[in-house]
């Protein structure tokens, strides 16, 4: 099953960095996952995120307000799958 990963952020540097790290983590783990970036502020707020960037895995917000390293994203993905 494809893992749904969403990166929330209005397009700031840190959001781009998080998306990059998430993509790298997915590639390194070799899992079947789809990384999408969410820029819409209403959608960001609806997800309950007040500090960007935010990371959502399969509908669950796992991290807000900071940029995890590639290793940390791998850990999160490992714990959630």
């Amino acid at each position: 099953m494809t893992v749904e990963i969403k990166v929330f952020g209005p397009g700031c540097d840190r959001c781009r960095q998080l998306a990059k790290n998430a993509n790298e983590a997915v590639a390194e783990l070799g899992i079947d996952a789809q990384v999408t970036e969410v820029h819409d502020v209403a959608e960001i707020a609806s997800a309950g995120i007040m500090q960007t960037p935010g990371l959502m895995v399969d509908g669950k917000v796992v991290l807000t307000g900071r940029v995890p390293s590639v290793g940390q994203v791998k850990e999160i993905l490992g714990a959630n799958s």
Partner: protein
Amino acid sequence: MSAPASAPPRTRSRHDLRLWVSLGAATLAWFALYRLNGPLWDWLIYDIAHLSGRLGDTVHFFFYDTVKILLLLAGIIFWVTILRSYVSIERTRALLGGRREGIGNVAAAGLGVITPFCSCSAVPVFIGFVSAGVPIGVTLSFLIAAPMVNEVALVLLYGMFGWQIALLYATTGLLIAIVAGYVLGHVRAERWIEPFVFETTVGEAAMGEGKMTFRDRVGLGREEVTRIVRKVLPYLLVGIGLGAIVHGWIPTEFFARVAGSGNPLAVPFAILLGIPLYSNAAGILPLVEALHAKGLAMGTLLAFMMAVVALSLPEMILLRWILKPQLIGIFIAVVAGGILIVGYVFNAIL
């Protein structure tokens, strides 16, 4: 410390010991560098390079200030990030939820100082607060105080001008946030907020990491230092560069003549100049320090600094997503008005 029977496994406590030893060593190194900064550049620039006069002073100002501010920044950001990791914006919102105006504005401004906040998340914070029932004026108090009165500004002001000025800045900054938020809460601002804000239903509060160890928090502190220093460095270097030029080349008392406390136009001019400028406290303070040394009045300078950090064009563009131009206009006018009063009051009493 003696190890009680219930102590964690040995490797763990040894790990923690190592963490504390390196924290201690880093703190000592920090103080040593801070003390050596002045004498080092005196020696290198005046004795070794034989620079003197204006050029020597300019170069000295540049290097001395760069090192001093970087040290202050790294130290403050590190410890404040660790302290702040115990506070979350979700908790702040919960605290503000049932507040009424007035006391709510006071609480919001105070929490704005201690809650971790980046102006890039002003919009999601606004929606998150308003949809959770925090009054608009209270939310705006938070959004004004958070970028204006922050730890970086306060520690740098303390380092350059002493605790009185830092305290004055904090008190008046908070006052502006409280009063401006209160005023904006009474202009029926709802009609100038994009309707989708009220239609947005906010999901369950996203939880950040619940259980972090102290080691995690130290790691977070280190990450923040690297990130923020990298981010402010260009502003800082431009600010210090301008400061160094002012320091070396502008005659003393020049500004006292053209923009001293006797000139009533100096404060509004400083604010108008500050609004479109985008920088942060770290970038603006070296310039403020140099201008102050040349006789520019403190009230005018603080007004300039507040206008630069509290009212920035990029932030207004972000806020345009959720606020109609009328409200943005009123927002700028009210905050600028508060800053204007602060500038005049300080010029009168300092």
